């Protein structure tokens, strides 16, 4: 005989808040009932409710504004792992305005991970571009792109704050990305990443490492990106 269990208070709170948003058709910016009312409706303690709100806020579902209440968040830009689009495209899909802040842009000697992923001799000069990418002026991710310098002469002179790397590669260098292979894991932001993304050091972030290849399977770009999870979604729709 299978054990019958009650829905735990924490699940009741979590599911209850999501159901409330859904069944009341609340949209971005609209308020949820007060904490006291939510506790009564869901019959959970204040502590349990706050834990649930913190979890939903970490996932970018709601935003808790001190003194003002809890509000539904706008849709976050999403990366679809089954159909990876450029950053600007992902941001435009949720009707936000994409922009980039260039942190650094120049030539340096390849470190081991970079040379390995791009199949370069150790210490080979690589072009490295570091950008904070934003949606409606909100920091979404910090992205490091590395390309073999000899493949893209003069690229360090380009201003990447308003042009995409893919565009420059296609237009100025005749290089076309045809395949992407990437890996997403979770880690904590270091002090620099936190400062650049407007998050405390030690915050949990998605960490993506990827290689972009041309039609001949030659690796063109190696990128490392740190995403702020409450401002960005990573999803995958698969057909089996």
């Amino acid at each position, binding site marked *: 005989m*299978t*054990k*019958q*269990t*009650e*829905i735990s208070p924490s699940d*009741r709170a979590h*599911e*209850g808040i*999501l*159901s409330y948003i*859904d*069944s009341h058709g609340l949209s971005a910016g609209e308020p949820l009932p007060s904490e006291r009312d939510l506790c009564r409706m869901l019959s959970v303690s204040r502590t349990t409710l706050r834990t649930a709100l913190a979890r939903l806020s*970490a*996932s970018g579902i709601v935003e808790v504004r001190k003194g003002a209440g809890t509000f539904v968040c706008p849709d976050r830009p999403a990366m679809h*792992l*089954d*159909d*990876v689009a450029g950053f600007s495209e992902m941001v435009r899909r949720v009707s936000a305005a994409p922009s980039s802040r260039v942190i650094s842009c120049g030539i340096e000697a390849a470190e081991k991970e970079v040379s*390995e992923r791009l*199949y*370069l*001799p150790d210490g080979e000069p690589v072009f490295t571009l570091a950008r904070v990418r934003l949606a409606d002026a909100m920091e979404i991710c910090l992205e490091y792109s590395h390309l073999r310098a000899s493949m893209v002469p003069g690229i360090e002179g380009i201003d990447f704050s308003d042009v995409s790397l893919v565009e420059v590669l296609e237009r100025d260098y005749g290089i*076309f990305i*045809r*395949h*992407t*292979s*990437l*890996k*997403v*894991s*979770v*880690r*904590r932001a270091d002090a620099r990443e936190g400062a650049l993304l407007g998050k405390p050091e030690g915050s*949990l*972030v*998605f960490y993506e490492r990827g*290689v972009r290849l041309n*039609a*001949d*399977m*030659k690796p063109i770009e190696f990128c490392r990106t740190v995403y702020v*999870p409450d401002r960005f*979604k*990573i*999803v*995958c*729709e*698969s*057909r*089996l």
Partner: protein
Amino acid sequence: MSKGLRSTLRAGNADLQHLPLYLRIRQILRERIAEGEYAPGTAIPSEADLSQFFGTTKATVRGAIDGLIDEGLVLRVQGKGTFVARGLNVDGERLHVPRGFRDSQILQKHAPSIRVLETSIRLVGDFYARMFDVSPEGALYHVRRLNCIDGEPFAIESTLIPCEIFPGIEEIDISVFSLYEFYSLRGHTVVRAYEELEVCELKAREAQLLHAQADDPALGIMCVSYDAGGQALECARSLAVGENACYLARQ
């Protein structure tokens, strides 16, 4: 064994000449896969054959293949060899099948094993009533499992299944049938899955199960599986730690 392999390595292209041997071998294998010489589902030559052919050690060949495993191009099946996971289309057309949790994290490396930690029945409730389109007063079957690779735990997976769609599911021996197999036998073959990644922090009891520390970062994956009629069949949440706690995608 292909005739082209060795000559490619020797003649090489200028780009490859400076590279350590294992990276050159990796790139050559990649190209063979891209060109379809090693087709999806078939085995590539054994490590022994490859090392003989390239005139190097098995360790070097293994190093070359490890990178291809990381990229999701091939998978190593213990005692059987290394297989091409899926094809690459050299014309750049999409030929991509995203790698789901089980696929990417378990099948890819070593021997998986699954231990059932707990099974129980709970009320559906409003939230899952909407997800599964069933009555909120019905029951959900809950299975909590620990997934291990080579005996080492790396993920806790918690699955909820509506009893209204699968009456009697609680009587099934899930150590014999996989859940997907069971759904199929009942006429609900999973054809589509929606996954969303989450960042998580381990709670003390999760950390204990996973041989990790409380508050360690973990990768969460929420996955809803659907049949051809669009019916949601199960909602699974997994929590993974360690080097296997990653999600691979290729296109």
